C-alpha cells in the first residue's frame, strides 16, 4: 500500500480480548463509529468474567456488531483502507475469535490487516478528535494534522481496568512504547470485583463500591498499600524490584480478614466504611506510584484509560496529584476508556499513516503480547 495516499485512512478495528465485542471505524483521527456488544450480563452470576462464556458471546456477536458498525458509519467494506485487530494481550480463547474474524475479513475483502497491541490501543484512543467525542490531545489540531504532531511529547498512560493495571511511557505510538510498571497479580478492577463479592455488593464491583464508598469513612480503617515498602521501592537512583509495580491480592485478603473480625466479635460489618477504605487504598497506591513514575521519567502528559477510569475517586485523586506534580491529565470519554474497537482502529490508522507494513494473515494471537510489540 502506498502510505502517501492515506493521509486520512479509513480503518476498521476489531476488539475481542475480554468480554466486549467491539467494532470501531475511524477516518484518520476522526471517529465514525464505536459499536460494542458486551457479554457482561452473562458473567454477573459468576462474579467475574468467565473466559469460555466471553468467547461464546464473541462468536455470536461478531457479525451483527460488524454489520451495525458499517451501517452506523455509513461506509462499505469496499471503502475501508485497512483492518486492525487486537492480537493481545487478553484472554486466549476470546482473542482467537476476533483474530480469526479479522483474518477472514481480510481474505474476503483483500484489505491489509494489522495485528494490534490492546494496551497501546488504549493510548491510541487519545489521538481521536475531541469534537467527535474523542479526548483532548488532538482537540486543538486540524483534522488533517500529520500524526507526528498529534501526540504530546513526554507522554505516559495509566491504564486501569478489570484486565490490566499498567503505567506506560510512549515515545512513539507506532513503535516505541515502554512498560514502566504493572500489577504483579490481580488487576485493580479484578480486586474491586472480588471485594464487592466479599461485601455482598454484586458484579461489576467497581461502580457498586464507588457508590457505597461515598457514604463511608475512608479513614475508619487503614488497609495495606501493596509493594510500598522500601525493599520494593528502593530509591530513584537505585530503584527496588517493584518501584512502579502494584499488587492487590494482599489487600483483598486484608479486607476479608477485616470482615471476619467484625463477624467474629458479633458486630455489624461497617460495609460502607470498608468499601471507602478499600477504595482509598487502591486509588492511593495507583496514583502515588503512577505520579512517581511520571516524575522520574520526565512524563508531563498523562492519559488515564481502562474501565476503572469511570471511578470517581480515581479520577479525583489522579487529577489532584497530577496537578500538584505539574502533569497534564487527559481522560477520554468513558465509552472510549472501556475496551472497544475504535481504539484498535485509531491505532491502526496511526500505523497506516506512519507507513508501517501490515501484519499479513499468518500471525498468531498472543495472550501475553508485550507493549514493546505495538503491531505484529
Amino acid at each position, binding site marked *: 500500500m502506498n502510505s502517501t495516499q492515506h493521509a486520512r485512512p479509513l480503518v476498521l478495528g476489531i476488539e475481542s480480548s475480554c468480554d466486549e465485542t467491539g467494532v470501531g471505524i475511524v477516518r484518520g483521527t476522526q471517529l465514525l463509529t464505536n459499536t460494542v456488544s458486551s457479554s457482561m450480563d452473562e458473567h454477573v452470576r*459468576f462474579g467475574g468474567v468467565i473466559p469460555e462464556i466471553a468467547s461464546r458471546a*464473541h*462468536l455470536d456477536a461478531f457479525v451483527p456488531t460488524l454489520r451495525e458498525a458499517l451501517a452506523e458509519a455509513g461506509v462499505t467494506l469496499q471503502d475501508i483502507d485497512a483492518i486492525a485487530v487486537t492480537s493481545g494481550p487478553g484472554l486466549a*480463547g476470546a482473542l482467537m475469535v476476533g483474530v*480469526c474474524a479479522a483474518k477472514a475479513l481480510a481474505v474476503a475483502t483483500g484489505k491489509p490487516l494489522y495485528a494490534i497491541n490492546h494496551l497501546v490501543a488504549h493510548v491510541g484512543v487519545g489521538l481521536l478528535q475531541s469534537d467527535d467525542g474523542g479526548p483532548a490531545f488532538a482537540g486543538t489540531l486540524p483534522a488533517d494534522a500529520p500524526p507526528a504532531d498529534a501526540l504530546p511529547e513526554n507522554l505516559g498512560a495509566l491504564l486501569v481496568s478489570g484486565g490490566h493495571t499498567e503505567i506506560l511511557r510512549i515515545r512513539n505510538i507506532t513503535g516505541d512504547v515502554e512498560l514502566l510498571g504493572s500489577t504483579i497479580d490481580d488487576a485493580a478492577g479484578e480486586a474491586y470485583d472480588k471485594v464487592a463479592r466479599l461485601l455482598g455488593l454484586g458484579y461489576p464491583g467497581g461502580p457498586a463500591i464507588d457508590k457505597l464508598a461515598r457514604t463511608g469513612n475512608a479513614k475508619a480503617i487503614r488497609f495495606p498499600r501493596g509493594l510500598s515498602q522500601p525493599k520494593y521501592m528502593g530509591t530513584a537512583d537505585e530503584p527496588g524490584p517493584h518501584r512502579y509495580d502494584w499488587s492487590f491480592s494482599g489487600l483483598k485478603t486484608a479486607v476479608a480478614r477485616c470482615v471476619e473480625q467484625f463477624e467474629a466479635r458479633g458486630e455489624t460489618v461497617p460495609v460502607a466504611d470498608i468499601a471507602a477504605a478499600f477504595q482509598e487504598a487502591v486509588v492511593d497506591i495507583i496514583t502515588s506510584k503512577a505520579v512517581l513514575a511520571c516524575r522520574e521519567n520526565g512524563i508531563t502528559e498523562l492519559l488515564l484509560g481502562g474501565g476503572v477510569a469511570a471511578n470517581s475517586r480515581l479520577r479525583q485523586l489522579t487529577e489532584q496529584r497530577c496537578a500538584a506534580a505539574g502533569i497534564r491529565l487527559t481522560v477520554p470519554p468513558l465509552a472510549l476508556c472501556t475496551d472497544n474497537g475504535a481504539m484498535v482502529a485509531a491505532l491502526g490508522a496511526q500505523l497506516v499513516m506512519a507507513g508501517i507494513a501490515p501484519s499479513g*494473515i*499468518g500471525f498468531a494471537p498472543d495472550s501475553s503480547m508485550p507493549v514493546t510489540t505495538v503491531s505484529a
Partner: protein
Amino acid sequence: MLILAIDTSAVASAALVSDDTPESVVGCFATEDTRSHAEVLAPGIEALLAEAGLSGADVDAVVTGVGPGPFTGLRSGIVTARTLAFVWGKPLYGLMSLDAIALEVAESTDAAPEFIVATDARRKEVYWARYALTTGQLPQLLDGPHVGFAAELPDLPVYGAGAGLYADVVKAVPEFSSRQPEALSLGQFALARLAAGELLLDSTPLYLRESDAQVPGPRKRAL
C-alpha cells in the same frame, strides 16, 4: 455449485468442492495438528482460492463443520465461515463434523451396516455419533452427537481418532484409527445432501458441554 467448506473441530481444514468437477474436488488442505487454527486457516483459504483462480464471487455457499470439537478451535472455523459468508453475501450452512468421517466410512470397502464415529473430546472422553448404512445411500445419523467415555460406547465398530485413542476398550477399526473430520468430506457430504434436497444445519456450534464456570458459593474464610 461451488462450495467452500471449513472444518476446525479437530485439525484445521478447508476445501473447495463442486458438482461440476470429477470427484468434486477443486482443492483442499488439512493440517496435521489441532492447535494452529488461527495461524493456518485464513492463509490456507486464501491459497485455495488463488490456486483455483477463483474469488469469493464464484463461491455459491459456505459450509462449516459445527462440531462437536474442542471449543476454541471449533470457533475459529465457524467465525471464519460466518465472516466470509457475510462479506461475500453467500448462504451459510452447518454440518455436524462427525459426518465427514461417516461419509468416508460409507465409501470404504468393508463398511459395517451400523457403526460409531468417535473423535477426541479431551478429558478422557470422546465425541461420538451412531450411523446406519444402506447401499447406495448417504450414511444416516441414528443417534448423537454425544460426549462421553469410550468404554460406554455401544458395542459397534468405531471409526475415527477417538477410537484409536481408546483401542483397548472399543472395537477400533484400524484403517480409521487416526482419522479426523476434514472439510473435503464435509463439503462432499454437503453437496450430496443439497443435491438430494435435504436441509442442512445452521452454523450454531455443537459444544455439548457447558462452560466450566461455577457460580461462587459462600465466602471462604481467609483466616
